[in-house]
């Protein structure tokens, strides 16, 4: 979870960094372009002014020439021709300069050509006029015409220069306007970009701050975990080791030393030092296991013993696993656990189990042998009693006959008890075979076993069709027989017994008697009678061995029959319940898993 958050955060920060870098590049680009434009503009202005100045200069030189020329005409003094001649040179110089700087498109070049033509025309005219002066035809018609032409050319030059200056100025103005408009948006844009960058930086700062806080929190948690792990190691008797394969270096946790019965850090953590603690008998196997671990880079659970310095032997369980970190470093991280207590307890339980099993077997053997072997002398006692009755009855006094009768009754009762006890111990024996059996047959056989009583008591027995179930046939036969006998035995003297046997297949969820059972479907067989019943409070007790609810003079039960039923049902993983109402009857419900 935490890892995921950080991964997300790192990705986010990376995006912000890239976006910020991009924005700064944009800002740089714009600034460069802006400054470049500014320089360009200044150059433009300078060149426009230079052009204008040169043009003015040209006009001025022409005026000087004109002036000199006129002065010469008026005075005929050739000294006035001096400025005229130098003007001619200077005009040429300026014109060359102009040609160089006035590079503002074809239009201006055309204008310069026209201007040059005009200037040439003007100077031609000057020389022509001069010839008139030397001929002194100053006031001649031709002179006048020439002079007038001069004026026209001069005016044309002026006009052309003005035109050119105007063009330059308009060009400059246009340029200036464009520059102005550029200048208007750039700062705003830059400002916006800066603002966005700032926001990004703030977000990044916040994000980094949050991450940092989280890291601190996790760090403190890690610290707690680490402490907990150390404590756990102590409580659980674990020790942790790390083997840095590449560096051939080991680290042992403090508690690993304690498990070995040493003080933390009391020896250098090496494999050789560790194996010196391993029990001599286990050393070979341990070395082999570790070799396998190196080969497979994985260690299954291994078990061995260690001997502490004071001679105490401890049972150890070990496990290890290869870890490769991001740098490709290989380490095997492993744990050892002191399982001596566990093993001791396990051995103890096993021993006790064996003892219990033995006791149980002995007990049931004793029960069986006792009841079986007791039968023999008892049977003989009974047979001798019967012989006495037959042969010696006449020789006995009335007391003697009475005592003999009492002995007979007691012997009979003892026989009943022993028979039942034997039957009970037989149901106790395990390893019975389960056979798919038609319960109707078993019920029919059980009924046949009590035919005499049924006829004698005129009992009415009705039953539903029973299913075929996987059971121990002899035991279920016994179960049915005992339930039938029980109902017949505890019947009312004045009323013929009526026994109803009902069957249904039910779901364990639908019956409150089937709580905590393993199977979902159960065969429910109900034996209900109209006998003397019993108080509901004894419903649990009647299944206990030798538990009787009735006086033995009235009813001949031994209190074993229903215990046998319970035992049989237990053997079948079923449930048996009793329900009774005095003088109304009793209901026995048995549930057998489907």
């Amino acid at each position, binding site marked *: 979870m935490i890892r995921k958050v950080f991964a997300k955060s790192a990705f986010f920060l990376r995006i912000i960094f890239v976006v910020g870098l991009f924005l700064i590049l944009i800002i740089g680009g714009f600034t460069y372009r802006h400054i470049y434009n500014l320089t360009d503009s200044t150059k433009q202005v300078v060149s426009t002014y230079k052009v204008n100045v040169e043009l003015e200069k040209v006009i001025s030189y022409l005026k000087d020439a004109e002036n000199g020329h006129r002065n010469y005409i008026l005075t005929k003094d050739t000294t006035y021709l001096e400025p005229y001649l130098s003007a001619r040179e200077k005009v040429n110089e300026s014109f060359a300069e102009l040609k160089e700087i006035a590079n503002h498109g074809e239009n201006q070049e055309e204008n310069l050509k026209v201007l040059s033509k005009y200037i040439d025309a003007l100077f031609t005219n000057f020389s022509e006029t001069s010839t008139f002066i030397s001929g002194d035809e100053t006031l001649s018609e031709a002179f006048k015409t020439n002079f007038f032409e001069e004026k026209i050319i001069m005016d044309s030059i002026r006009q052309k220069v003005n035109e050119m200056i105007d063009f330059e100025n308009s060009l400059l103005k246009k340029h200036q306007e464009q520059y102005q408009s550029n200048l208007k948006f750039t700062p705003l844009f830059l400002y916006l970009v800066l603002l966005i960058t700032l926001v990004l930086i703030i977000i990044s700062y916040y994000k980094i701050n949050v991450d940092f806080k989280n890291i601190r929190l996790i760090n403190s948690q890690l610290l707690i975990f680490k402490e907990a792990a150390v404590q756990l190691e102590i409580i659980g008797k674990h020790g942790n080791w790390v083997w840095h394969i590449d560096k051939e270096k080991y680290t042992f946790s403090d508690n690993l030393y304690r498990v070995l019965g040493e003080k933390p850090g009391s020896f250098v953590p090496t494999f050789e030092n560790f194996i010196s603690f391993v029990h001599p008998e286990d050393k070979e196997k341990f070395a082999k296991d570790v070799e396998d671990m190196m080969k497979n880079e994985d260690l299954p659970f291994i078990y061995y013993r260690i001997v502490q310095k004071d001679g105490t032997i401890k049972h150890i369980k070990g496990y290890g696993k290869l870890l490769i970190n991001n740098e490709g470093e290989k380490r095997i991280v492993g744990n050892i656990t002191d399982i001596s207590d566990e093993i001791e307890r396990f051995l103890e339980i096993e021993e006790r189990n064996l003892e219990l099993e033995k006791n149980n077997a002995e007990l049931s053997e004793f029960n069986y042998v006792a009841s*079986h072997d007791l*039968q*023999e002398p*008892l*049977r*003989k006692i*009974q*047979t001798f*009693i*019967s*012989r006495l009755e*037959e042969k010696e009855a006449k020789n006995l006094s009335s007391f003697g006959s009475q005592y003999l009768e009492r002995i007979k009754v007691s*012997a009979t009762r003892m*026989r009943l008890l022993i*028979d039942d006890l*034997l039957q009970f111990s*037989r149901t106790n024996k395990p390893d019975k075979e389960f056979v798919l059996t038609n319960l109707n047959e078993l019920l029919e056989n059980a009924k046949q076993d009590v035919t005499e009583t049924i006829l004698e008591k005129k009992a009415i027995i009705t039953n539903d069709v029973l299913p075929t179930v996987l059971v121990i046939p*002899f035991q279920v*036969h*016994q179960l049915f027989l005992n339930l039938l006998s029980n109902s017949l035995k505890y019947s009312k003297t004045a009323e013929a017994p009526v026994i109803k046997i009902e069957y249904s297949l039910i779901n364990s969820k639908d019956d409150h008697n089937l709580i905590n059972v393993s199977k979902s479907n159960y065969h429910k067989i109900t034996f209900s009678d109209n006998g003397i019943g019993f108080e509901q409070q004894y419903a649990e007790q009647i299944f206990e061995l030798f538990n009787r609810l009735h006086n033995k003079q009235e009813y001949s039960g031994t209190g074993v029959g229903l215990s046998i039923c319970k035992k049989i049902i237990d053997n079948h993983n079923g449930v048996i319940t009793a329900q009774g109402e005095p003088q109304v009857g009793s209901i026995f419900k048995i549930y057998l898993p489907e």
Partner: protein
Amino acid sequence: MPNDYINIILADDDEDDRLFFTDAFDELKMNTKVSTFNDGVELMAYLNSDDAILPNVLFLDLNMPLKNGIECLNEIKANNKMSDIAIAIYSTSASEEDIEETFVLGANIYIKKPSSFKQLKKVLSEVVSMNWQYHTNGLNKDNFLMRL
């Protein structure tokens, strides 16, 4: 054929039981000859001897020293010469399964030793009479199963 007598043998290690047994037959007056053996070894030694008169019915106690009833039963069933003997297991008690097991091993009759002399006489006379029926009426002896 009233001159015929029924030849009966009992193998039982218990003296009292042997006494009850012979007394019962004495009182039954059924034209029987009863001989008894004290254990399985004695019994088998006699049966295997050349001049042995094989019994019509052999009563076997299960619980005998040296050689118990089941061992005797197995030996007899493995011997063709003795295949005609009806074998009655004569025992104190056993579980239903054990009873069935002895039948499966070839016993014809299973008798739980009764606890009164009268009952004993009744049981023994029923066994002899039933065996007589099988003997004289050509019934299939393989189907002779009886439990008392």
